[in-house]
């Protein structure tokens, strides 16, 4: 299944400057594996040493924060847009 992944500025060194790339995978975890295969090093920026999402990374499948879905097991249907965004705050 092919999905579109929005890449934040600080990760574009891994995608040759591209702000959006395509990847394959039925779950977020599989998508990250595919991203790693094509853009070596990117997965370690998104996941910590224990293989979990880093605390300050927010990943959205469509409009939903995956922390409200099934985390790395969240389904990623064909054509889904995935966004990787650094966590920020404000008020």
């Amino acid at each position, binding site marked *: 299944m092919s999905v579109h992944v929005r890449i934040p500025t*600080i990760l574009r060194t891994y995608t040759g400057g591209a702000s959006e790339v395509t990847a394959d995978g039925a779950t977020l975890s599989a998508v990250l594996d595919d991203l790693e295969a094509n853009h070596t090093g990117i997965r370690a*920026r998104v996941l910590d040493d224990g293989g979990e999402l880093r605390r*300050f990374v927010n990943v959205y499948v469509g409009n939903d924060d995956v*922390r409200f879905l099934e985390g790395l097991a969240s389904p990623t249907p064909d054509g889904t847009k995935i966004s990787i965004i650094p966590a920020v*705050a404000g*008020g």
Partner: protein
Amino acid sequence: MSIATDTSPATGTTGSALRDRAFGNATGLACRECGHEIELGPHYACPECFGPLEVAYDFPEVTREQIEAGPRNIWRYKALLPVPDDIEQSPNMEPGYTRLLRADNLARELGLEKLWVKDDSTNPTNSFKDRVVACALSAATEFHSKVFACPSTGNLANAVAAAGARAGIKTVVFIPANLEKPKQVNSAVYTENLVAVNGNYDDVNRLASEIAGEEEGWAFVNVNVRPYYAEGSKTLGYEIAEQLGWRLPDQIVIPVASGSQLTKVHKAFQELIKLGLVEDKPYKVYGAQATGCSPVSVAYKAGIDAIRPVKPDTIAKSLAIGNPADGIYVLDICRETGGAVEDITDDQVREAIVLLARTEGIFTETAGGTTVGVLKKLVETGQLDTSLETVVINTGHGLKTLDAVSDLVGAAATIEPSYAAFTASGII
């Protein structure tokens, strides 16, 4: 300190070089998580681990006398902020140095011996946000930014729109579409570019983060210039210490939205100790949330150090951040200092707004109601020592959230215009 150069060089949002001492005594940006350091620039996330970047400094000797000789606004602390030496010369809102009121009536009501209210509702746009925005505006100016922007729960939008107008920079402010009407008007009056987004604050925040990553020349105060912006909250801590006679309170109660303000007040106290401006002594930090958006309080009570994001559902919209980026640091600070994080219901928020108004003549918005209400709960549950000096922060003015208490207060009687009718009303 060594500065890595694997990100952008020291340039602004438009790629222009920075002037000398554009950020005063600031020396770089350091990741709060992994310690990775980069040069000063419009960056907010660590390129190594996505952790939040904080301003690092090399402070010179700073004396009480130097500070006391400064202007009666936050720039009296400019040596401790990421701003240029000539910051007073640039048009800004000159916020800060708000009153620290001894609150004996409220103290008596709650059973406290010594209580002060730091009343930040008297800032130029009636909330503490003028402090952080002043620092963000300085950063935007030094970065040669063309647009001054923010996602906001309301108070920040007010402050950004006003400060941008005074500085003559284009502003664009993004708010949740369901925000209280007064907060919308309070922003729209200063800017043509108020954007209402169909979603909650976290949705608006996400949109802003995406725009910040795509658009050149934009300074989103709480996104890509957030390290500089957040430092403005330190001035609350500096002022409290100075106004207490250059000493720290024993206990302080602070509202928690993103958690940034609480962490920065603590940082300010620590800096004052390190600089020898106050005596080193223990103090307890307490965080206040509304139950309808209390991810930090929930984690505190559960004894865990991870924040589980929530979908906010509370009248305290200025605290309604369901995924608070600094929440874990709030937990660390409240636990390390022996404080706590507590939450109260919306009804308790409303009651606390009226309580503060009727005991001290201070009309606070829902965030201040949350903080005062949590103070009350901390006393009632024995989590706070009633014999110690306590400070509670009021972050915004009640005129911004009139709806919160409009059903609670009103005319005690409606009478005919005669003395007889008045005496019959039971008012006296």
